């Protein structure tokens, strides 16, 4: 048992080292970011930020539950900033009471009012649109409406991921906000009837299935297609498909934000605001555009040529807060029509 005891002692020492390195996070030159965006995706941004400002960025990334974590941690929470996608999640954070107004005239100047919370509790940093991947060979039309996706002429020809995924949730919520629940239900049933297969996989699988001929239309986000087009192994799928920017009848394309909130008990508040303003600055917005293939929200920063190739984006004018407000109704509708079953 002595060998085991020694191993245990060593492990404890090593663990102490990790623990200690996790100790001092409230120093002047740091900012602590809780993020739903993957580390790999945001690391280039933070590296550039540290280079510019000398402020070190510490990260925790997770797929869910960060609002609960910040809330549980309470006043001692090291969180300064929560970085996330989806308006529903941004508003969830606000409702959880873990945010404070960002109060930055700089930010207000460069980010349009429709992509900021009126009270300043969240700010959008970049945009993505929920679009249609269409087979180049089998789909001749170059424009489509979201409403048309329920047209029986597409029966057995559409692929999509789970209706409960937040990207689809927001699209369905937008439909509810625009047309009301009854019409949305009819539409969702029509869309369900048009599916080539049970909703599954992710946007990437959707694009693959369109490319291979499993379906003619797929619904996915703008940047996935660009990531495929720039990957050697995945380029054939991108080559076999085209991106159509759909619109609502009499409206624009459904967009969602990636954005930030400032934590209520942020220990490094000044650094956090510096980071948020930096993320809305020219350099970061170029990284969002050219590395992550998102639409930059800062006026004057060009979108990446691949994304520009989809055509001119006309974002729908429905306020994002209305989309967030219909989130629960959208989830309930997906259940009701058995969309994922």
């Amino acid at each position, binding site marked *: *048992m002595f060998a*085991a005891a020694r*191993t245990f002692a060593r*492990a*404890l020492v*090593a*663990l102490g080292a*990790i*623990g200690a390195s*996790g*100790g001092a*996070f*409230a120093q002047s030159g740091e900012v*602590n970011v809780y993020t739903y965006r*993957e*580390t*790999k*995706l945001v690391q280039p941004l933070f590296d550039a930020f540290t280079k510019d400002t000398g402020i070190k960025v*510490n*990260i*925790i*990334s997770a*797929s*869910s*539950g*960060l609002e*609960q*974590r910040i809330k*549980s*941690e309470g006043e*001692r929470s*090291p969180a300064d900033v929560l970085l996330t996608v989806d308006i529903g999640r941004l508003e*969830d954070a606000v409702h959880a009471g873990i945010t404070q107004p960002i109060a930055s005239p700089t930010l207000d100047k460069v980010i349009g009012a429709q992509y900021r919370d009126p009270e300043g509790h969240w700010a959008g940093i970049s945009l993505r649109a929920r679009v249609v991947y269409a087979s180049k060979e089998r789909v001749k039309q170059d424009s489509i409406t979201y409403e048309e996706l329920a047209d029986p002429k597409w029966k057995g020809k559409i692929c999509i991921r*789970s209706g409960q995924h937040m990207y689809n949730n927001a699209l369905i919520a937008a439909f509810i906000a625009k047309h009301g629940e009854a019409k949305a239900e009819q539409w969702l049933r029509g869309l369900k009837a048009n599916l080539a297969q*049970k*909703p*599954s*996989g*992710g*946007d*990437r*699988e959707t694009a*693959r*299935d369109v*490319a*291979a*001929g499993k*379906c003619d239309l797929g619904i996915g986000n703008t940047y996935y297609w660009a*990531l495929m087009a720039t*990957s050697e192994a995945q380029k054939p*799928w991108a080559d076999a498909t085209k991106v159509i920017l759909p619109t609502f009848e009499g409206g624009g394309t459904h967009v969602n934000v990636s954005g930030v909130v400032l934590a209520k008990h942020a220990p490094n508040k000044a650094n956090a605001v510096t980071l948020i303003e930096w993320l809305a600055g020219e350099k970061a917005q170029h990284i969002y555009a050219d590395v992550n293939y998102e639409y930059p929200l800062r006026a004057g920063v060009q979108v990446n040529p691949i994304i520009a190739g989809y055509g001119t984006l006309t974002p729908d004018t429905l306020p994002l807060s209305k989309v967030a407000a219909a*989130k*629960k109704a959208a*989830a*309930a509708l997906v*259940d*009701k029509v*058995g969309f*994922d*079953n």
Partner: protein
Amino acid sequence: MHWTPAIATAVALALAALLALPLVSLLRIAAIGDAEIWPHLAAYVIPNAAVQTALLLAGVAAVTTIAGAGAAWLVTSFRFAGRDSLLWLLPLPLALPTYIAAYVYGDMLDAAGPVQSALRALFGWHSASEYWFPPVRSLPGAILIIGFVLYPYVYLAARAMFQTQCAIFIDAARTAGARPTRALRDIALPLARPALAVGVALALLETLNDIGATEYLGVQTLTLSVFTTWLNRGSLPGAAQIALAMLAIVAALIAFEAYGRRHQRYQSVQDGRVTAPVTLKGGRALLALLACLVPVAFGFLIPAGFLLREAVLRSLSGGIDPALLRHGLTTVTLAASATAVILLLGLAATLARRLAPGRLIAAGVSIATLGYAVPGAVLALGLLGPLVAIDDAINWLSLRLTGTSVGLMVAGSSAALVIAYSVRFLAIAIGFMRAGLARIPNEFDEVARSCGAGPVRLVGDLHLPLLRPALWGAALLVFVDCLKELPMTLLLRPLNTETLSTYVYQFASRGSFEDGALAALLIVAVGLLPVVRMVHLAEGSPNAADEAR
């Protein structure tokens, strides 16, 4: 010695209290209630999710039993070309996280994957709409993928049983002229049923814990509905209520497992006998080899080969992320620390139960193992509150003693993960140790005591040495599980901490999991070492096997 029962009771109850904290916290969340959500859940969500979950569990039980028990029986009863390699290969899927297997098969078998592309080229089909191919992202797909990754739980349990407990009876049957198949049906299977129940229960608990594979494969399980209820339907109380209701299913599984263990207490220290395998030749040998290769190939060789190919391709073109080494070290350190803590806790709990039998202690130990029954992601949510409560206590103390606050010493450090792993995986350790202790007859204790040995000597000189195989088994399985753990690690990890599992996940969630292939392979590689060690312990050295023959 009169204080032994008191100390044992205190240890067991303290452990139970600590480990019950997340459940209590979940109960508190559930108790907030959400009357609005239940009619909706009952009408549209639960029925479908319950059916899908039941089908998934039944399917996985069938696949793991057939693959695990079948392979165990073949390699134990027969000698055929390739058998010695199979003894090493069969447990290897243990090292592969299920969701990674799901992504690999999704990629290989979907319409754009290499298999269907090759079929199209072969038959001159132009598009995937011109033929039918079984959809991999489906319930049957999930059953097969998860089943072939989890069968080693059944295999290991069945193999140990066939090898030791049944040997005498099978040999006797053979001497009496029974054919091997008859020996299997009439003797080996009924005798091994308890072991099979244990293995299947573990595999099913792992299945219930899964969220990555089932979500990707489009199976609407109850576990998934916990998440959608929390995140989309906006009802954390509703989600907690579903999770607690699921505990009922789990309680049934655990009862099933306990039913499996119920005879073990009557077994004595294992005899050294091993059934002498019958040598197979020609077609039969080939059939046996193929039958064993199927689970190994689907559960390990194919996915690991795919990862290896992707890792090599990507390392050649894009180089290797230098941070991987650091993440690997973090992963191993965390897993090793948690394993050490879990072994100590498990030992304390099982020995307390042994030294001071009583209902209170038994109940305490049972509560302490419930953590394994709650899906990791739910457990992590339940742990947030208690972890911070511990920190509040520490800070209160530190403020009173030193006048300064020390911050989140527990919730904000790796200690949170070690606690989380302990809560979740203690059941495995306790299970192994109970089985191990049950093989040491109580008479041994009585003799030792009558010779004047106190509890310290009894444990140190008798129990621990005899428990060594069980301790190793527990340590290895717990270590591998900690290595692979994802949902709790994601939510509870400290700032700037990345394990191999979380590193792979970020690629997977961005739809480019191949970019994490090298890290996935590292998990498999690190996980392999203990699995190989486990096989080594169970099978002995090749020479020893020869001697036994």
